């Protein structure tokens, strides 16, 4: 009698999501080797409605006993997940919560507002009144809004000027081009909140190209890309810190879900991962050289 667990998440279209994918596959290998009677079925989907379809298929074709789902978006996937729930499956939701409480049995979450807040606190710590920053946002989504709003709330009243914010879509190329244009437009920028490590890579390239990477300029990204963390360990001054938003959360969720079938103790509940500020001091413990992210 096999235990079938469906794992559904967005198609990796950028590095963070790829990291998540990698961690999911690693966890699958590990867990399936550990428990021969557990079958994990991994499916990724390019948009919310495709993900809804994937959930239907997991249910009707694979007849899963549990579902680990990282919803593309909260709203549209609430009903489809609820349908899976009705089939009797155990539900674990990762990262982006559903819009209706009480559906999931287990919740493993990153903390988006916290990421914005921690980033803003670091800015406040390093900058003084009258200093200028620019913001490169992610893809217009709820996550992006939560981070941005929390950042702005925290920075409010600090006297630091946010010159402008544009979407760079969690993408290096966009990060590079938007930053180039910010640099042409604003002669005085003291720091950049790039929100994501991919964007930060583009930002750094643009800063170097324009020769504006000195004078105490710094960039804060987010998520915990291994190269970024390596840089922090090596004392990179341009990207001195990072704010954690680990793609490994999917693996955590898979572990907990399997544990729900295998362990005796209670596993239901909420697991909120912190948005830890990664500094040269603690960087080593967040460094996974084998991960693609």
């Amino acid at each position: 009698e096999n235990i079938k667990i469906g794992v559904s998440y967005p198609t990796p279209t950028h590095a963070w999501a790829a990291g998540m994918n990698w961690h999911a596959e690693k966890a699958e290998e590990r867990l399936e080797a550990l428990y021969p009677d557990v079958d994990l079925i991994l499916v990724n989907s390019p948009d919310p409605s495709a993900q809804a379809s994937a959930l239907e298929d997991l249910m009707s074709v694979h007849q899963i006993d549990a579902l680990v789902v990282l919803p593309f978006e909260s709203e549209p996937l609430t009903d489809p997940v609820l349908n899976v729930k009705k089939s009797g499956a155990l539900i674990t939701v990762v990262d982006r919560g559903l819009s209706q409480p009480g559906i999931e049995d287990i919740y493993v979450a990153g903390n988006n507002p916290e990421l914005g807040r921690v980033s803003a606190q670091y800015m406040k710590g390093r900058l003084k009144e009258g200093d200028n920053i620019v913001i490169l946002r992610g893809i217009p989504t709820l996550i992006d809004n939560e981070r941005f709003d929390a950042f702005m709330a925290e920075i409010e009243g600090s006297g630091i000027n946010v010159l402008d914010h544009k979407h760079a879509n969690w993408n290096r190329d966009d990060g590079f081009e938007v930053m180039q244009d910010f640099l042409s437009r604003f002669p005085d920028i003291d720091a950049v909140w790039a929100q994501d490590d991919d964007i930060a890579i583009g930002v750094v390239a643009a800063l170097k190209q324009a020769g504006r990477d000195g004078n105490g300029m710094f960039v804060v990204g987010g998520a915990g890309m291994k190269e970024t963390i390596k840089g922090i360990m090596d004392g990179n001054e341009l990207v001195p810190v990072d704010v954690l938003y680990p793609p490994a959360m999917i693996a955590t969720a898979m572990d907990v879900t399997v544990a729900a079938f295998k362990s005796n103790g209670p596993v239901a509940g909420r697991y909120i991962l912190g948005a830890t500020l990664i500094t040269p001091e603690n960087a080593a413990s967040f460094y996974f050289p084998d991960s693609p992210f």
Partner: protein
Amino acid sequence: MTETAMSTAKSSKLNGFDLKTAGPAIALLILCVIGFLLNPAFLSEGNITNLLTRSAFIGIIAVGATFVITAGGIDLSVGSMAAVIAGVMIIVMNGAVDTFGTGLTTVLIGCGCSIILGLGAGLVNGLLTTKGKIEAFIVTLGTMGIYRSLVTYFADGGTLSLNYDIRGVYRPVYYESFLGLPIPVWVFIIVSIAGWFLMNRTAFGRYCTAIGSNESVAKYSAIKVDRVKTLTYVIQGLCVSLATIIYVPRLGSASSSTGVLWELEAIAAVIIGGTVLKGGYGRIGGTILGALILTTIGNILNFTDMISNYLNGTMQGLIIIIAVWLQRGDWGRKTSAD
């Protein structure tokens, strides 16, 4: 020397042509066999129902696209159009709650609004191409960007969600069945029949074909070319709004990721079905098969984890190319020099 003028050699035409018509059907059949071999549950009633229901969105939109393409046009904006219509529908329904409550009236208002928007958006595309004389590709690439960004704007970058109580009333439109078939499938069937009739049995269908074959012949044959072309976009808009009406109760929300790439899927369905991209030859029946083929590919890929998830796109691409190659229907025959 009058009578013999028309000798009957009907026979020869059938071989080539029927295969061409049968091509998409064969492709679909092969896919189903593969699906079944991978997992017998593929043919379970539940899965077939899911599959049909899912095909409804793309299928309905593709029926509209068949008209546009047959008349020599193209519409890249349908996915974004669906998103913005869904968004506005939700805003309108949520707004109507105060006045009309969360009952059927509100849902009907939402649907009415969807239809008006669909017709309007189609009209805009149509008039810009015909009266504005701008290439359809550019017009609809432009409106694609516009509609997509409008929904992002309305949703403030996030997601628009339908009021929860309305959802209760509206839900059955997606989830309920009638005579054993889910409502979206019924809508798909009705749209298909209407589309088939319009294309093959009315003057309008002829006009579309004529325009797509040769616009000046159409003009000299007293066809109001601009009007007919505009109408094809309006029909496309209507189809998008119908698809949206059955889409909204499924997920109850709209965001900037709603309907992404539906345009390519719809066009692919049309062409897999045997309609010619340059216009002049439209096949509604083929389009429907095309939509089913595309949905089935996605479904089958969800059936197996033999293939790395990353390679889904490769499988999809290969299958689409092979399906159209089958559809060509002259495999084996020597490449004619003619």
